[in-house]
C-alpha cells in the first residue's frame, strides 16, 4: 500500500467520518441544551448537513458526472413537489 493510496483509501474517509461525528456531537448537545430556541430546525439542519457530507464524499457525488448528480437531485426536487403542494392543503384548511 503506497503513501498516496493510504491517503486516498483511508485518509479521506477518516476525515469525513470525523466531520460526521463532530456534527453528531453538536446536534446531540444542542438538543439537550435546556431552553435552546429552534430545536427542531437545528436538528434537521444538522441532519441535512450530515446527509450532504455522506452524499458528496462517501457516495462520491463530488467527482461524479453531471448526469449522476441530476439523478441524485431529481428525487429531492420531486419530493418537494409532494410536500409543498400537500401542505398548501393542510395550511389553508
Amino acid at each position, binding site marked *: 500500500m503506497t503513501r498516496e*493510496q493510504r491517503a486516498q483509501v483511508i485518509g479521506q474517509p477518516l476525515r469525513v467520518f470525523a466531520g460526521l461525528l463532530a456534527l453528531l456531537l453538536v446536534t446531540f448537545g444542542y438538543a439537550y441544551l435546556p431552553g435552546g430556541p429552534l430545536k427542531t430546525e437545528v436538528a434537521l439542519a444538522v441532519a441535512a448537513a*450530515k446527509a450532504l457530507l455522506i452524499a458528496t464524499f462517501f*457516495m462520491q457525488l463530488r467527482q461524479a458526472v453531471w448526469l449522476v448528480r441530476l439523478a441524485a437531485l*431529481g428525487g429531492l426536487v*420531486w419530493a418537494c413537489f*409532494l410536500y409543498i403542494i400537500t401542505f398548501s392543503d*393542510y395550511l389553508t384548511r
Partner: protein
Amino acid sequence: MTEVTLQEPWATAERQRVAVQFGMWLFLATETLFFGGLFLTYAVARFSHPAGFVAAAREAEAMFGTINTVVLLTSSLTMAIAERAVREALVPLARAMFAATLMLGVAFLVVKGFEYRSDIVKHLVPGPEFTLSQTGASQFWAFYWTATGVHACHMLIGLGVVTRMLLIPAADLPGRSTTAEGSALYWHLVDLIWVILYALIYLVGR
C-alpha cells in the same frame, strides 16, 4: 487500474461505471421519494397535533438512538474504505472492511432489538394497552414503528448486499469495482435515511 469485468452492452469500463452509478442513483431517487412519503405522515401528524406528538417523542430512548447512529456512521466509514480499497485492488483490506461493515450492521439490528424490547415493555405500541393518552401520541408511535421497521428491512437487504460482496472470490474482487460501488451507494443511503430518522425521532422535544 486493473481490468474491470465488462457486462453485456458496455464497450468501456468508464461507460459501465457511469451506467451503474446513474442506475443506482435513480434507484436512490425512488428511495428518497419512498421515505419522503413516509416522512410526510410525520410532518402532517406533527402539524395537526403538535403538543401530543412532541410529548410522545420524549418517550423514545435517545441512548439507543445515539449508539445506533454512531454504529451506522462507522459502518459508512468502513464501507467507504472497502469500496476505495476494491478500486485500488487492496483485496485483504477490502474484505476486512466489508466484514467490519457486516458486523456493524448486525450490531445495529441487535441494539434496535433491545430498544424494541424496552419500548414493548413500556407499552408504547399503539393499541389497546397503549399508555400515552394525548392526541397525536399514537400518531408518533405509529410513525416510529413503521419508519424504523421499514428502515430495518432496508438494513437487512444491505446486509445481504455486503454478504454478496464477501462471497466474491478474492481473485475476482478487483474486477468488480463497479459492483462494489453500487453496494456502497446502497449502504450509504441506508445510513443517510437513519441520520434523518435520528433527528426526527430522538432529538424532538428534549
